[in-house]
């Protein structure tokens, strides 16, 4: 029988340590909506999403109340729109119409974000993919809930440098199109390498073509829970540290698994995966940087940070894998800057630079995330940052991503305010030495060798 100590431990995690289920994301296939007419396509998309997701928010709220665990976000991901719109869209404006339909439908259903305004172009871009990418600045400036992701590389295909170069321009154009709101459009645009098909977290969520008609994926959280657990083992050996991380990750994951199964049962939609992520928010105490501090570095970015993060990321997976039926998505520790007060403090203290963040992305769960950079950064420089990050993912067979915000009209020393879960960020300096001769070459970086490692 459950003991009082166990009950109090769980409820303390929820009440004092920000334990929550970060998102229930319903993945919906739109392949059966494909139509040569844009208007009909948009109607079909709206109808399919409404039909599949009509009970999502209610079920999420019911589970929240019955189990007493906050479920912060209920979200939707759809099949990459680059595929779905291919037969209908002739112009970027046509694609933007789909984005507006997604936005309106998300609002009707009551979800805060809808992911999948995406294209998978890791080897080549179709004409439709190109149009979708061209439409991103207008799509993200004219909608509030739509999330966009472009997969420009993979360990199987290499890196599509034409797409990387193009995304350098698109990120800047998106920043300018939303200049009046600190370039918030770029917070909804991520460029990935090895993007998973079953990621429940935004901005990179889309419903992959390997998936069934609809699926429930759940993202857990818990940096605050982890930090509190680690406070109790200060000064202990790595063995004790790792064991504590694993035990804590397992507990957090079990809650995610329960919620995922329950949501799946009540919605009549198959359970996909639990994403075992330490996902921070700007709330005090809900910080991955604070966990790194507790592991033993003064600030995130100090020497030792990459090792501490590597250990954390891996032990979270080791603890979580056994606690869930299926795991997937991004799983590990996220290191966004604007969404993590500890990371912001580290930047402001001068401890954390872009270069150190890049090193950390070799071992974290995703990549360079929610980093505000000067608005006058060149498109080729952004493309260079993208290329570096894609290369790390490709060679190391991990998911990497870039979500940078070149904040229009602002420079180093200024702050960008995005509000809510997206947080705020100090603008970080970027290495301004030129890489245009590199990124302008055109073509692809070939797929890597998978043996012969050193």
């Amino acid at each position, binding site marked *: 029988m459950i003991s009082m100590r166990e009950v109090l431990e769980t409820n303390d995690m929820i009440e004092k340590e920000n334990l929550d289920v970060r998102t229930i994301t319903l993945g919906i296939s739109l392949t059966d909506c494909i139509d040569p007419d844009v208007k009909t396509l948009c109607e079909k998309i709206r109808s399919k999403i409404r039909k599949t997701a009509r009970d999502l928010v209610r079920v999420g709220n019911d589970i929240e109340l019955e189990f007493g665990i906050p479920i912060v976000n209920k979200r939707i991901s759809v099949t990459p729109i680059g595929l779905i719109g291919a037969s209908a869209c002739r112009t970027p404006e046509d694609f933007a119409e789909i984005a507006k339909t997604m936005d309106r439908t998300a609002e009707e259903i009551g979800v805060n974000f809808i992911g999948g305004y995406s294209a998978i172009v890791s080897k080549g871009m179709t004409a439709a993919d190109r149009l979708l990418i061209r439409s991103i600045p207008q799509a993200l400036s004219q909608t509030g809930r739509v999330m966009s992701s472009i997969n420009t590389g993979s360990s199987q295909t290499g890196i599509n440098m034409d797409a990387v170069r193009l995304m350098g321009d698109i990120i800047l154009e998106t920043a300018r199109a939303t200049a009046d709101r600190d370039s918030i459009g770029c917070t909804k645009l991520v460029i990935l390498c090895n993007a998973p098909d079953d990621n429940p977290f935004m901005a990179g969520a889309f419903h992959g073509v390997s998936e069934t008609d609809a699926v429930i994926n759940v993202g857990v959280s818990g940096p605050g829970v982890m930090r509190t657990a680690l406070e109790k083992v200060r000064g202990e050996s790595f063995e004790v540290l790792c064991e504590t991380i694993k035990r804590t990750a397992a507990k957090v994951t079990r*809650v995610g698994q329960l919620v995922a199964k329950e949501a799946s049962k009540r919605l009549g939609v198959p359970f996909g995966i639990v994403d075992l992520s330490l996902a921070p928010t700007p709330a005090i105490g809900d910080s991955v940087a604070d966990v790194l501090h507790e592991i033993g570095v003064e600030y995130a970015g100090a020497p030792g940070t990459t090792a501490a993060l590597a250990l954390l990321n891996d032990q979270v997976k080791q603890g979580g894998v056994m606690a869930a039926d299926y795991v997937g998505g991004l799983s590990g520790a996220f290191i966004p800057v604007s969404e993590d007060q500890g990371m912001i403090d580290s930047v402001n203290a001068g401890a954390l630079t872009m270069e150190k963040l890049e090193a950390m992305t070799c071992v974290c769960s995703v990549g360079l995330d929610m980093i505000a950079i000067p608005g006058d950064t060149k498109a080729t420089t952004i493309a260079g940052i993208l290329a570096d990050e894609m290369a790390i993912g490709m060679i190391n067979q991990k998911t990497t991503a870039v979500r940078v915000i070149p904040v229009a009209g602002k420079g180093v020393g200024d702050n960008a305010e995005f509000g809510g879960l997206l947080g705020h960020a100090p603008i970080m300096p970027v290495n301004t030495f030129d890489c245009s001769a590199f990124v302008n070459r055109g073509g692809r970086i070939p797929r890597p060798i998978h043996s012969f490692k050193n």
Partner: protein
Amino acid sequence: MKRAIITVVGHDTVGIIAKVCTYLAGQQINILDISQTIVNGYFNMMMIADVSKAAKQFAEVSADLEALGEDIGVMIRIQREDIFDSMHRI
């Protein structure tokens, strides 16, 4: 059997258990186990209850208990037992 955990946390005062039990009896909710402790002057009580014959929906019971807690000056919550089982039992 659908089991729920009811927790009561707050300053100790006369009649907390009586009031909670009276409410539960009225709802046909059977109490299977009660434990309580006082930590730093704070009253902590946990009940394991069978809610399968409850007269009202879970959400209503939850809202009633919250309101009752406000009357007494303590925090009362009810949660399905599964969350604790999931977290603490493999």
